[in-house]
């Protein structure tokens, strides 16, 4: 089908920063906890309290801005965003309106090999709201709702992109890139399932070639990369159908329903809040010293793109492999640590991307939850390289290591899995197998080289897989000459 419409997407990402304390009070910034235990008069919004800005939040926001090539404002301020909701104890959110801390940045994304630069409009700092636990399905259909204010005052940055994304895949690639960068900066846990990384999407369509943007819908409530992609795909389809039928898109906010796989209208433009922004009179303006910004810039860690380039250039990894491994700082760090003890980039890359990621994905785990220590990983590869165990054995040992956290030597010993490479020990067995299978020997001698496979298999069976297949192969050929 030829493309009639162009999809235009802009993303607003909310990132919870992992500072030790909340943005405006000394309460711990920790996920979870019994409801209303990480609270104090300030984050409860009691009468008379005043916020005190946590300077670590500024540091983290500026780091994010620098990593995304933003301009860092030397003068910035907080504003109040006024709206009523029971998870917002003051009924205003302290945020930034016209003078955000960062603006005019960009980020490069790689969508299946296609590289593209996406503009960053702005990054601003704000406080998170609490959580509501409804007695029923929604706030309006419930007899009661409970309010948990542990999350109130957790520091957030909102990163707003330009409407530069053109497909659900690009949007996903952008989100994945953001997650990687923020993880490299060590400013957030970036866990979508726990809500430390959240995203709203503004989606519109326009005729291919048209300049003017179409009417957009804002989609909320997408809790994973997968749901982001699905929601955008659904929304593009929905808008396409409306336009094809000669209808008009309504400017509105829509919510993604994960179960039904559809977006549903939340509120129209007319019902949208008038936030009545007001400069926050309880806080002083934020003055940023350019010298401090330069210090932060100099102290930024190596970012995913730079690391990927280094892995390709210095370690000889393929673009694809380097992309996967550097896509997560934890994974790339792990890779580097294995490499310290076992300096064979291609083998380590194969194992990390093959066995390790397979098991981690199957267990729906984080890299950091993996029980295999990098030096154990290296030791396993060494056992395989010096022929102590076979490649097949190594995979079995690896699974055991992953499950139990035991070292490879221990597992090999426990299971008696040492490979038999001694030619003397194998010679008797080989002669016995040759004698027992004259037909196969005949076939081999007649030129059917495949017949040797059967003989190797017999020997492996006799040794319960412990014979070194290379040595067996060599000895067989010698004996059958």
């Amino acid at each position, binding site marked *: 089908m030829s493309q009639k419409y162009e999809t235009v997407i802009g993303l607003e990402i909310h990132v919870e920063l992992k500072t030790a304390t909340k943005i405006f009070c000394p309460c711990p910034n920790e996920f979870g906890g019994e409801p209303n235990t990480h609270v104090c*008069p300030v984050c*409860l*919004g*009691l*009468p*008379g*309290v*005043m*916020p*005190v*800005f946590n300077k670590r939040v500024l540091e983290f926001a500026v780091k994010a801005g620098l990593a995304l090539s933003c301009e860092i404002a030397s003068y910035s301020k907080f504003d*109040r965003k*006024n709206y*009523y909701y*029971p998870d917002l*104890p*003051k*009924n*205003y959110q302290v945020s930034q309106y016209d003078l955000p801390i960062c603006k005019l940045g960009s980020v490069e994304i790689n969508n299946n090999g296609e590289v593209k630069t996406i503009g960053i409009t702005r990054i601003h700092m704000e406080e998170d709201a609490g959580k509501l636990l409804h007695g029923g399905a929604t*706030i*309006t259909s419930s007899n009661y*709702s409970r*309010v948990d204010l542990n999350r109130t005052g957790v520091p957030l940055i909102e990163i707003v992109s330009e409407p530069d994304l053109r497909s659900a895949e690009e949007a996903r690639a952008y989100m994945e890139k953001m997650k990687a960068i923020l993880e490299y900066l060590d400013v957030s846990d970036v866990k979508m399932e726990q809500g430390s990384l959240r995203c709203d999407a503004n989606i519109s369509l326009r005729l291919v070639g048209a300049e003017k943007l179409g009417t957009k819908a804002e989609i909320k409530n997408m809790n994973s990369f997968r749901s982001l992609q699905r929601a955008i795909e659904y929304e593009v389809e929905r808008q396409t159908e409306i336009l094809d039928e000669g209808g008009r898109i309504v400017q509105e906010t829509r919510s993604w329903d994960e179960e039904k796989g559809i977006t549903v209208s939340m509120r129209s433009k007319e019902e949208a809040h*008038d936030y*009545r*922004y*007001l400069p926050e*009179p*309880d*806080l*002083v303006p934020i003055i940023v010293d350019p010298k401090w910004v330069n210090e932060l810039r100099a102290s930024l860690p190596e970012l995913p793109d730079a690391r990927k380039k280094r892995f390709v250039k210095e370690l000889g990894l393929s673009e694809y492999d380097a992309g996967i491994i550097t896509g997560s700082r934890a994974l790339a760090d792990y890779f580097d640590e294995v490499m310290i003890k076992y300096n064979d980039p291609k083998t380590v890359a194969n194992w990390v991307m093959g066995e390790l990621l397979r098991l981690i994905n199957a267990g729906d785990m984080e890299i950091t939850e993996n029980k295999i220590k990098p030096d154990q990983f290296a030791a396993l590869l060494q056992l395989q390289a010096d022929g102590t165990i076979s490649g097949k054995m190594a995979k079995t040992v690896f699974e055991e290591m992953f499950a139990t956290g035991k070292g490879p030597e221990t597992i090999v010993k426990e299971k008696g899995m040492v490979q038999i490479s001694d030619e003397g020990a194998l010679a008797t067995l080989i002669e016995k197998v040759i004698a027992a299978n004259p037909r196969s020997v005949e076939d081999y001698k007649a030129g059917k080289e495949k017949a040797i496979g059967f003989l190797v298999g017999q020997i492996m069976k006799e040794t319960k897989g412990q014979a070194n297949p290379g040595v067996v192969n060599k000895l067989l050929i010698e004996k059958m000459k």
Partner: protein
Amino acid sequence: MLLMKKMAVLKSHGLFDIVLEMRGGASLSLTSLTAHELSELLDKRELSSKELTVAHLERIGSVDDKVKAFTTLTAEHALLQAEEIDKKRVHGEKLSPLAGIPMALKDNMCTRGIRTTCSSKILEDFVPPYDATVTEKLNSAGTVLLGKCNMDEFAMGSSTENSGFFATRNPHDLNAVPGGSSGGSAAAVAAQEAVFALGSDTGGSIRLPASFCGVVGLKPTYGCVSRYGLIAYASSLDQIGPLTRDMTDCALVMSAIAGHDPKDSTSAPMDIPDYSKYLVNNVKGMKIGLPKEYFGAGIDPQVLAYLQQAIGKLEEMGAICEEVSLPHTMYALPAYYIIAPAEASSNLARYDGVQYGLRVEAEDIVSMYCKTRSQGFGDEVKRRIMLGTYALSSGYYDAYYMKALKVRTLVKRDFDHVFENYDCLLTPTSPTVAFNHGEKADDPLTMYLSDICTIPVNLAGIPSLSLPFGQVNGRPVGLQLIGKAFDEGTLLRVGYSLEQSTNLTKPLPALKGGSRA
């Protein structure tokens, strides 16, 4: 015996005359003294804080049904605090000059475990789990809290008639209003129910009641006293300050409450000055500006006459008094009535019935919000919330709020300009003396004009002091001194000089005229 001893003590301090003027026994006379006089008696162990506290509680018992200065009395708490200080004194601990002095707080300053209502039904049962910084500071200075003072609801008003509970009366004439919004604080000090009190001033809320009730009231420079724990009306204008019997007490209380507070980001990074060092009876060579905009039409001729008398006195003492101009004065009032309500509309949004305070149950959350706020807030509060909400609405923001901020800058520049050549300014605190109860209650615009002389100072963030100077028909007149930012010292010096050289600065309350009270 005891009475005789006390009288002798008072006589030995040259205070006998004051005592003789008072009706009633020794307790009553004790309540007429200033903090610094009482501090001396306490220091010499000629008086205990407990005796002093009992005297004040008795005084409250005998007059507060007329004055109605308190929303909450904390008698037990006060006696415990007094006993504790007395013990410390017996043990020879070094105590602050305010140790053991009974005082009162405006009911918008948070007191842990003691209800803090803002004189609003919406906070009628609110008991804060924490202390305001001023509460903490006065606690550590060893003062004794007698109770919380009535006010215009959420500090919105000029007469203390807008209290959600009851109106406070002017101790000089019970038919008159005490001024507002810190009317309870000023009346308590004037009626000798407390030695001093704290008030808060957003557009004149310390100075107007100080003027109407014949006490000293200081609105310090914005950022001088921590606002942490002060229930906000308009955060960029609010400032806490003392209401006292004289300038010396004003300096003492300021020294106890001023200074940087890490919990208030807008508090100035300053050391706590010893304000007492400014109590100097000398204004020689000082240049005092008389802004002509404050002396125009509407000023009561008798008030004007006292002002001229004060000017004459200052000139006599060697000060140079000259007319100056603050040309944007007339725009200050309208700008204030955009900025203050705008901030208030946001500050008061939290009173929604969800977490604390009044909740009126309803079928859904939005109706609960509506009913709670409709029943919890009084008319004036609702009026200002609506004004502020309107001013901040999209499409109106630039025309109202932005413009008001520009006016604010111009008003501030006016002051900066005259302070290049003058040490301070002298104006009336109010064009008239206290008006009658009910006189302006139904006319908000006329009521707003009560603050015409005090509002510009809040917009500029500078310090200003109201000092009693004479009476008209038994109702006190107030002089307003306006100074440069963080130059409270000059105001104290000029005020002290006037106080030392005339007998007009300490009007005594009649506690009469309240047949309707």
